[in-house]
């Protein structure tokens, strides 16, 4: 299968990168570093899995970071205003629900009014962010409820060295693992998942075989909103504050990670494994610049060059794997 091969290439690329970095700085291979990389990938990873669902369905969403920021900030404000003392479960549920609600706004325009996904989400992204900052608030919330702080301190495999240095794996990776399994089951093992693939392959054909596309799209964008909301509250938990200016601006990088992971911007194709590999490739790249000793002034050049090399290699590989008839769509993308 072509998909497998692309994922193998990605895994190989990651291993090559990891080997290169460890040669320069063996500290890369420390348990602490691997834990840090996993944690750094949680929020981006969940957002990327949300984007994967949209891309497979043949759409594009760039409002997901605005939804995540809105859900994060609004839910934290509600919890603080309500004088919540714990707020761990309530915060997660509330943020996910707010995210789902905003996702439904997208669903209304895209599913019910049948409008192009990029245009709608470009509009709602501005609308959500503008409303958040103009009407909900702009100040950073530093006094998060105790339950959220407790979650941020929750670590697995925690160990403390003699010098007092503590390392541990943030429990937030459990959320990423759960979402990854959930999205994989949804896309590969359910009728809904098959329908999403069919919709992305050809909307017209999907309708002809009896898929209720309006309902399906409403489902997709609501789920994406909910996942974005969850990612938002996890970001607040990680940072121990809720800053409404955070998250927005990362949308292009997240979409790039998913596309790098092998998802087709024309829809119909993309896997959870590929997406996670794409995310961790970028996270590793971004979080090894100091270990590698790349001078600060050269970091952007370095990141740009590595992105270009890895996408060029994977594009070549996919071209070689694809039959000549499939070669053509390599340029076009409805995404932004």
């Amino acid at each position, binding site marked *: 299968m072509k998909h497998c091969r692309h994922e193998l290439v990605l895994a190989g690329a990651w291993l090559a990168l990891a080997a290169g970095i460890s040669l320069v*700085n063996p*500290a890369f291979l*420390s348990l*602490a*570093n691997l834990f*840090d990389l996993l944690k*750094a990938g949680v929020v981006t990873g969940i957002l990327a899995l949300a984007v994967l669902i949209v891309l497979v369905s043949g759409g594009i969403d760039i409002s997901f970071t605005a939804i995540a920021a809105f859900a994060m900030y609004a839910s934290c404000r509600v919890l603080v205003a309500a004088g919540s003392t714990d707020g761990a479960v309530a915060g997660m549920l509330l943020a996910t629900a707010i995210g789902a609600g905003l996702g439904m706004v997208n669903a209304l325009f895209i599913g019910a009014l049948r409008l192009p996904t990029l245009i709608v989400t470009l509009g709602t992204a501005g609308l959500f962010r*503008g409303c958040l*900052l103009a009407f909900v608030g*702009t*100040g*950073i919330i*530093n006094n998060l409820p105790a339950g959220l702080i407790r979650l941020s301190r929750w670590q697995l495999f925690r160990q*403390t060295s003699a*010098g*007092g*240095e*503590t*390392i541990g794996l943030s429990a937030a990776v459990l959320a990423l693992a759960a979402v990854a399994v959930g999205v994989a089951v949804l896309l590969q093992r359910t009728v809904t998942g098959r329908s999403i693939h069919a919709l992305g392959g050809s909307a017209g054909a999907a309708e002809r075989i009896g898929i209720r596309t309006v309902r399906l799209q409403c489902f997709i964008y609501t789920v994406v909103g909910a996942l974005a909301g969850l990612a938002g509250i996890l*970001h607040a938990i*990680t*940072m*121990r*504050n809720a*800053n*409404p*200016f*955070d998250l927005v601006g990362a949308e292009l990088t997240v979409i790039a990670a998913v596309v790098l992971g092998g998802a087709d911007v024309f829809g119909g194709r993309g896997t959870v494994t590929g997406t996670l590999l794409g995310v961790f490739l970028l996270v590793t790249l*971004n*979080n*090894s*610049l*100091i*270990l590698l*000793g790349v*001078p*600060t*002034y050269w*970091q952007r050049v370095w990141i740009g060059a590595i992105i270009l090399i890895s996408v060029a290699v994977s594009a070549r590989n996919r071209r070689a794997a694809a039959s000549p008839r499939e070669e053509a769509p390599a340029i076009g993308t409805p995404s932004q």
Partner: protein
Amino acid sequence: MLGPARLVTMMKSKTLHAPLLALLCGLFPAGCRKAPAPPSETTPAQRRFTIATVVKLDGIAWFNRMQEGVRRFAGETGHDCFQLGPPRADAALQVQLIEDLISQGVDAICVVPFSVEALEPVLKKARRQGIVVVAHEASNLVSTDLIIEPFDNAAYGAHLMDHLARYMGETGEFAVFVGSLTSKSHNQWIDAALARQQAAHPQMKPVRDRIEEYDDQNTAYQKTLELLKAFPALKGIQGSASTTAAGAGLAVEERGLQHQVNVVGSGLVSQCRQYLESGSVKLISFWDPADAGYVMNRLAVRLLESRPVTEGDDLGVEGYRRLRRDPGRTNLFYGSAWVDVTTNNMAQYPF
């Protein structure tokens, strides 16, 4: 789908472009170049001035606090004072805002430039139209009537380094952060800090060149985690942006290294309280943005009333009780407004 027929009609209708663009050029004439300032028939002391304060970014804690000072001044004096800032951290948007203010015809603009160089032409334009310009955090700005700095940038950066050296016991490795490589003041602070370290604290050693954290707390956190792995003997971090202390503090606390690693930097108490309490951030330094906003507006009114500002002036606000004039520039003034905060005095600064 777009058929060829449709393309042809589209090509035919291209004739519409020319009139549309001609209309455009007619609609936006450069017009009256020198708008005369409204004649003031009343005596200067009675005039109510309209003063706009333009900040780097709308809505963040720092400038929300500045707005309190602007409002306080408006309330005390009755002038029409308001604050605006761009919705995203981008110099281009600040230029546009000032363009809009010029055409609106305000009496004075108080500005905290995102990028000093980028604002020169638009502020020059403002002054040509008789608008008084007062700037803050912009010691190298040319097109301005007056600059009021909270302190001398070099002294500020050096004093943070002195604190860091004290916490580190004068020895060991440290790292320095800037919000962005393009930020003038952050780089001035770090330049001065490194110069002071070489001169006065020779046993200390910077581990690498200045690290950029894009004014983002998450990036500061991730970069600090990486530093702690790359340089296990690291003993100190000096931050510049208000996001560094909180981000670095979080990383140090998570690793349980607050007894080894000392974080000092700019920051607000609200952002750093939990890390000051846990000891992962040792000291933060800042100047009160509310006072800066208040003082800028006060100076603008002074200039509008043609009353000169001189060395030693008292502006009636703590930190600006004795203005110091720069020896090289007659319109550049310094206060002495920085405040160092540790767990001992953080209760006094509830913002």
